[in-house]
C-alpha cells in the first residue's frame, strides 16, 4: 500500500488544516495502475489523505476491508473491464448469446469482491468503471458490441446492489471521459510503460469526479441561485429594448435563454431557492415576467429579489438575511464579469461561477454543475420554497404583533416527536449536515452514524416535525442524547433546529421532551456543550436561558457526576439537573 502524504503531492495541494478533514482518508485501488503522486491527484489530495493499493491488490483490499474503520473513510475502486475480463472470453460470450448467466460468471470476481466489502465495511465504496474499447460504427450497425454488453451488464448489477446498500456509489467513467474526449483520456503508451491505462488528463478526470462525489459526502449542496436579469434571463437590456425587444424564446439565442430558464425552473422544483439581483426598474422586470409570452420562469418562482441600482453585494447580503440562508449557500449567476468580480471581492463566501460567454452553453453548463446536486431529494427539498415563504409570513406577523407569547399561542403550534426510523435517517443526516445556525455543536453526523446512534439502547434520539397556521414545516429538529448503561449522566450530542422555524420556542419543547425521556431512563443530569462557530450565535444563550448551569457554577457533587464525560470537549459546558428542571417558554405548547 502506497500512502501519499500532502508533502509528497505536487504543489497546488493545500493543507486544509481542519481536524475533521485531516481525518478523512480515501483508499484507491484500481485494476490498472493509478499513478500515485501524479499532479492530477492534487484535485483530491488536498482535502483527503490518499492511500493507493498496488494495482494487482484490488481484490485482497476489497475482500479484507476492516469493519471498524472511520466513517469518514472512503474506498474508491477503479475497474477497467479489459483488465478483469480476458478478450478470449468475449467470443464465447457472443456464441453463447450473452445470457445473464454468462455475464454473471464473467463479472463474478468483481461483484463478489464488492459484495464482500459492502457486507464487511461501513465505509462508503465508490465503484468507478470504464470500457477502454471503442468499436467502430460497423460493429454497432446490427448489434450491441460484446464489450458494451459487459459494461451495461456490470452497471445493471451494480445498480441492483446499490438499491440495497446505503454506502455504494457509482461512477460510470466513460460518460465523463466523453466530455473531454476519450482519445485524450486513455494513453496506451502509459499502459505499456507503467500498466496505467489513463493519460494524465484521464487521471485528472478520474480524480475530479471522485472529488465531486466525496465532497458531497461532507458538504451540503448550495441552496440559493441568485440571477441577474438583463442578458441573463433574456438577451438585451429591458430598459432600452423594451419588453418586445428582448431576445427570449425566438430562434437562436432567444431559445437558449428560454432553455436556460427551463433548467433554472427545474432546479426550483427540486427545492433550489431562486432570487433576483438586478440593476433595473422593478416595475418593468415584473412586467416582463407577467407579459412576455416566452417567459418560462414565473413571478411566483422567485422567492426574494433586489431589483434596484445599488451594489449587488449589498443586495446579496440583504437577500441572505431575508431568507435566513448563509451566503456560502448562494450561487450568483451574472453575465457581467465586472459584477461577478465585485461580488467575489466583497463576498468571498458566495459561489460566483465564471459563466461561459456563449449563452447557448448555459443550459447544459448549469444542468451538469454539481452545486445543487444531491444523492436523492427528500420530501423537504421539494417543499423548500413553500417553507421559506411561510417563514417570511411568520416573521412579518410576529413583528407586527411584537412577538409575544399570545401570538405564539394563536398560531396553533403542533409539534410531533418522531423516532429516527430507517425512513427518516436521511432527513436526520441532512439536518445534521446542513443546519448551521441553531446547532449547539454542529456535529456533522452522516447517515451511518445516525443509524448507529439511533440503535443505541441508551440513547435518546428523535426528529421533530412541526405544523402551525403557516403550514406544515416538515421535520425541522433533531435531538440526540447519549448515555452509558446505568449511568446517571447523559450527554447532549446533537441539538438543532432548522432556521425556518426559529422564533417559536420549539427548542424549549424539544428540550422538555428530551428531559422527559431521559428521566424514564433514570438519568438525572444532562450535560450539554455549546461549540461556537461563526454561524451559530443564535444558539449561544439557549442553554443558560433554559435552566442549564454553566461549568463555572457547578458544585463539587455535580462536577464529580459529570467528570467521566468531560474529556474531549472544547466548547462551553453546561449541565441541567433533570430532577428539578422546569423548562421555560412552553406556554404555546401547553394547549
Amino acid at each position, binding site marked *: 500500500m502506497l500512502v501519499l502524504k500532502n508533502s*509528497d*503531492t*505536487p504543489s497546488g495541494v493545500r493543507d486544509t488544516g481542519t481536524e475533521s478533514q485531516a481525518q478523512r482518508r480515501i483508499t484507491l485501488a484500481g485494476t490498472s495502475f493509478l*499513478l500515485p*503522486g501524479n*499532479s492530477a491527484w492534487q484535485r483530491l489530495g488536498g482535502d483527503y489523505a490518499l492511500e493507493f493499493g498496488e494495482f494487482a491488490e484490488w481484490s485482497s483490499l476489497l475482500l479484507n476491508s476492516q469493519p471498524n474503520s472511520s466513517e469518514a473513510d472512503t474506498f474508491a475502486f477503479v475497474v477497467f473491464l479489459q483488465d478483469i475480463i480476458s478478450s478470449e472470453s468475449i467470443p464465447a460470450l457472443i456464441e453463447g448469446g450473452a445470457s445473464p448467466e454468462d455475464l454473471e460468471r464473467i463479472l463474478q470476481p468483481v461483484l463478489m469482491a464488492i459484495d464482500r466489502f459492502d457486507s464487511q465495511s461501513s465505509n462508503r465504496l465508490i465503484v468507478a468503471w470504464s470500457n477502454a474499447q471503442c468499436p467502430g460504427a460497423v460493429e454497432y450497425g446490427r448489434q450491441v458490441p460484446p464489450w458494451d454488453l459487459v459494461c451495461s451488464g456490470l452497471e445493471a448489477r451494480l445498480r441492483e446492489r446499490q438499491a440495497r446498500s446505503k454506502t455504494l456509489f457509482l461512477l460510470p467513467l466513460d460518460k465523463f471521459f466523453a466530455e473531454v474526449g476519450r482519445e485524450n483520456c486513455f494513453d496506451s*503508451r502509459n499502459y505499456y510503460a*507503467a500498466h496505467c491505462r489513463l493519460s494524465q*488528463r484521464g487521471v485528472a478526470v478520474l480524480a475530479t469526479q471522485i472529488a465531486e462525489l466525496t465532497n458531497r459526502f461532507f458538504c451540503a449542496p448550495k441552496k440559493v441561485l441568485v440571477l441577474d436579469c438583463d442578458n441573463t434571463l433574456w438577451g438585451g437590456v429591458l430598459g432600452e429594448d423594451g419588453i418586445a425587444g428582448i431576445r427570449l424564446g425566438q430562434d437562436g439565442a432567444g431559445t437558449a435563454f428560454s432553455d436556460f430558464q427551463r433548467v433554472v425552473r427545474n432546479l426550483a422544483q427540486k427545492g433550489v431557492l431562486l432570487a433576483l439581483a438586478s440593476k433595473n426598474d422593478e416595475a418593468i422586470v415584473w412586467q416582463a415576467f407577467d407579459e412576455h409570452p416566452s417567459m418560462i420562469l414565473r413571478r411566483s418562482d422567485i422567492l426574494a429579489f433586489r431589483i434596484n441600482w445599488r451594489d449587488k453585494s449589498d443586495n446579496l447580503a440583504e437577500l441572505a438575511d431575508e431568507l435566513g440562508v448563509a451566503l456560502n449557500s448562494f450561487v450568483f449567476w451574472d453575465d457581467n464579469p465586472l459584477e461577478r468580480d465585485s461580488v467575489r471581492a466583497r463576498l468571498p463566501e458566495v459561489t460566483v461561477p465564471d459563466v461561459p460567454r456563449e449563452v447557448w452553453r448555459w443550459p447544459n453548463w448549469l444542468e451538469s454543475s454539481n452545486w445543487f446536486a444531491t444523492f436523492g431529494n427528500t420530501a423537504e427539498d421539494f417543499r423548500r420554497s413553500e417553507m421559506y415563504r411561510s417563514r417570511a409570513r411568520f416573521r412579518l406577523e410576529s413583528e407586527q404583533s411584537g412577538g409575544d407569547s399570545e401570538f405564539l399561542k394563536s398560531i396553533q403550534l403542533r409539534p410531533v416527536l418522531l423516532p429516527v426510523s430507517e425512513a427518516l435517517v436521511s432527513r436526520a443526516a441532512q439536518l445534521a449536515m446542513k443546519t448551521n445556525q441553531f446547532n449547539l455543536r454542529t456535529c456533522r453526523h452522516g447517515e451511518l452514524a445516525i443509524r448507529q446512534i439511533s440503535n443505541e439502547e441508551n440513547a435518546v434520539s428523535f426528529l421533530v416535525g412541526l405544523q402551525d397556521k403557516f403550514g406544515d414545516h416538515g421535520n425541522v429538529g433533531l435531538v440526540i442524547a447519549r448515555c452509558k448503561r446505568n449511568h446517571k449522566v447523559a450527554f447532549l450530542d446533537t441539538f438543532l433546529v432548522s432556521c425556518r422555524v426559529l422564533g417559536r420556542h420549539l427548542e424549549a419543547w424539544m428540550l422538555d421532551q428530551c428531559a422527559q425521556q431521559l428521566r424514564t431512563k433514570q438519568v438525572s443530569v444532562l450535560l450539554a456543550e455549546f461549540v461556537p462557530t461563526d454561524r451559530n450565535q443564535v444558539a449561544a444563550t439557549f442553554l443558560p436561558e433554559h435552566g442549564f448551569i454553566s461549568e463555572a457554577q457547578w458544585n463539587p457533587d455535580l462536577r464529580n457526576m459529570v467528570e467521566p464525560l468531560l474529556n474531549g470537549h472544547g466548547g462551553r459546558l453546561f449541565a441541567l439537573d433533570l430532577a428539578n428542571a422546569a423548562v421555560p417558554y412552553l406556554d404555546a405548547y401547553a394547549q
Partner: protein
Amino acid sequence: MTRLEDLLRQQFPSVPLNDISDLHVGSFHEWSSLAHFNFLLLVEESFQIQFTVDEMSELRSIHDIRARLATAGIEA
C-alpha cells in the same frame, strides 16, 4: 526560474531545489522511478509534447529532458 525548474518544484514541493541542471532520477530520495514517470507526464502536459515508450525509460535526467525538448524547439 526556468519552466522545467518550476515543474520539478511542482512535482517535489517538499524538496529544496537550487541549481537543477545536474539532477537526475535518484538525486534525492523522493525522485523515485514512479515520481519520475509522473514528472515526465507533467513535462509532456506543460510543453504539449509526447515522449515515446523508449524515451520514457531513456530520459533520466534534467540534461536528457532539456536535450529532448530542444529537438522540438523548446527551451526549458
